[in-house]
């Protein structure tokens, strides 16, 4: 069937948006010469920043998975007074400016705050450390994990869990054998989204830890100090490595979707 004028307009806008999204990324990929990219792979500062970015965002995603899963399950399964307020609190990091996140985290982890003093007594430093970077990355990325996992848990019919429990399984066993396999895809999606969000974070991190430098901070510094040309290789390597990891995760988590 031929598309009418309405769909032609839709196709036009779809093409415009795709071009808008793809063009800058294509430019990142094509602007640096192969020689510059090759040299960048041997630049210790660039590779150190990229690996630190991958490490801190990976750690942040794992923490989101561990602490966010019970929270997401609770939101999916329990109705309680103030639930919508709790859900709004979870979404706050998405809507507030990220330098504000950095300043807020510094404020509660500094020596003038009781929490900061406890952390200091325990030997945990936030300012200018990978721990601080991971802390802000968890803060900005956890809503993405919780929302995706919650949707996954909601999609698992409660009756399956009830049937499992009448067959003798405990709640924990039911969660492991029924809920987790059926919501696993959403959990992996949430983990990838939170890792992606963490990897791209700049505003909150630059306040808490300018050093050690993660890739976005290094890009910013090189752009300011040397200009666009010298920041692009860092961007290229970061995008290439993160894309490779996300594609791998997607492939590993893909499989036939089970209809519930």
């Amino acid at each position, binding site marked *: 069937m031929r598309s009418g004028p309405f769909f032609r307009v839709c196709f036009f806008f779809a093409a415009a948006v795709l071009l808008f999204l793809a063009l800058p990324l294509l430019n990142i990929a094509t602007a640096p010469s192969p020689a510059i990219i090759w040299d960048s792979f041997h630049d210790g500062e660039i590779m150190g920043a990229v690996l630190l970015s991958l490490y801190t965002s990976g750690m942040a995603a794992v923490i989101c998975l561990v602490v966010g899963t019970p929270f997401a399950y609770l939101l999916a399964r329990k109705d309680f007074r103030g639930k919508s307020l709790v859900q709004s609190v979870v979404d706050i990091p998405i809507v507030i400016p990220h330098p504000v996140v950095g300043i807020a985290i510094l404020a509660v982890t500094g020596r003038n705050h009781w929490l900061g003093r406890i952390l200091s007594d325990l030997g945990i430093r936030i300012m200018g450390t990978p721990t601080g970077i991971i802390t802000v990355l968890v803060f900005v990325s956890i809503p993405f994990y919780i929302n995706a996992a919650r949707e996954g848990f909601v999609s698992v019919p409660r009756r*399956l869990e*009830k*049937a*499992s*429990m009448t*067959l*003798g399984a405990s709640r924990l066993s039911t969660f492991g054998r029924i809920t987790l396999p059926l919501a696993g895809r959403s959990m992996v999606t949430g983990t990838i989204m939170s890792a992606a969000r963490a990897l791209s974070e700049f505003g909150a991190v630059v306040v808490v830890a300018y050093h050690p430098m993660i890739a976005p901070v290094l890009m910013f510094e090189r752009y300011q100090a040397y200009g666009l040309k010298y920041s692009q290789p860092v961007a290229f390597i970061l995008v290439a490595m993160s894309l490779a990891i996300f594609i791998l995760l997607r492939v590993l988590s893909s499989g036939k979707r089970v209809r519930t």
Partner: protein
Amino acid sequence: MISLKNVSVVYRNFQLGPVDLTVPGEEFFMLMGPTGSGKTLLLEAIAGLAPLHSGTVTVAEEDVTGNSPGRRSVGIVYQDSALFPHLTVEQNIRYGIRYMTGESRFGFDELVKLLDLQPLLGRLPEKLSGGEKQRTALARALVTDPGVILLDEPLSSLDQMFKGGIRRELKKLHRETGTTFMMTTHDFADALSLGTRGAVIREGRIEQEGTVEELFYSPGTPFMASFVGMKNVFSARFRGCCAEVRGMEIHTAAGRTGGGFIAVPPEAVVLSLQPVETSERNRFRGSVTGVEQTGSLCEVSVECGSGPRLISRITRKSLLKLGIEEGLELYVSFKASAVHVF
């Protein structure tokens, strides 16, 4: 055996109970009632899936009120079968075996053979028909040998052609396992063909309990009468074997005095164009006010003067033969013995 004493459950704005009910062992008990009356909630209260507000639940002589769902000796089969979609039929059936603490009377192979599931063992639930899903869910519930099987409208999502087969399977399973079955249903045919005793639940409370025949043929309240399909339900004043309904005198077989209700099955109301001499003691003249098609049958409403509006259920063939249409004057008659008094 199931025994419920003063059981009540509060779920959001709905209160179930208090319910007192005893289902003897090896019985096939039918739980009926309109949508939202609390049937499923009652099953889940027995299974330990809905927290009790008050009361005690006893299953197979053991008070299981404080037990977790898996320690109640109760199996449940839901309307949608609730098979685990990521597990094969065999894995679904074997699911509960690892949690068993005692011996089961039924082996896996025996149940698979009994329910004819051998060719399906390797399939995922999405590849099964509605009937096959329910047979698998039954095997999964029975393999741990629970004292009670709770069936939550297991036939309602099945096509008519599968229903008969599953009914037969249920009958056979009940007979051969000797397990107590409690089943909720909307379908009177299910209740009459499977149940020995039953109860009707309305707004969270038991309206009437008894043998299935009693529920259908001797309803005790106006709600029960209309629930089991007795369309002509009226409040009446009785004087012996005569009930007065809005000025109309209706002869009854059973005599009583004071106030109460009568119900006349619409199948018992005969329509004729002329007054016919028969043994039927109730005969009135009226005019047709409405004709409604219900499948192969028709329901004809007849207004009898200032008296009640009577509904007669006749075949379409009779409707055409008598030339019945709105406004037609005719006679309605029914036997005194057809009038149910309560």
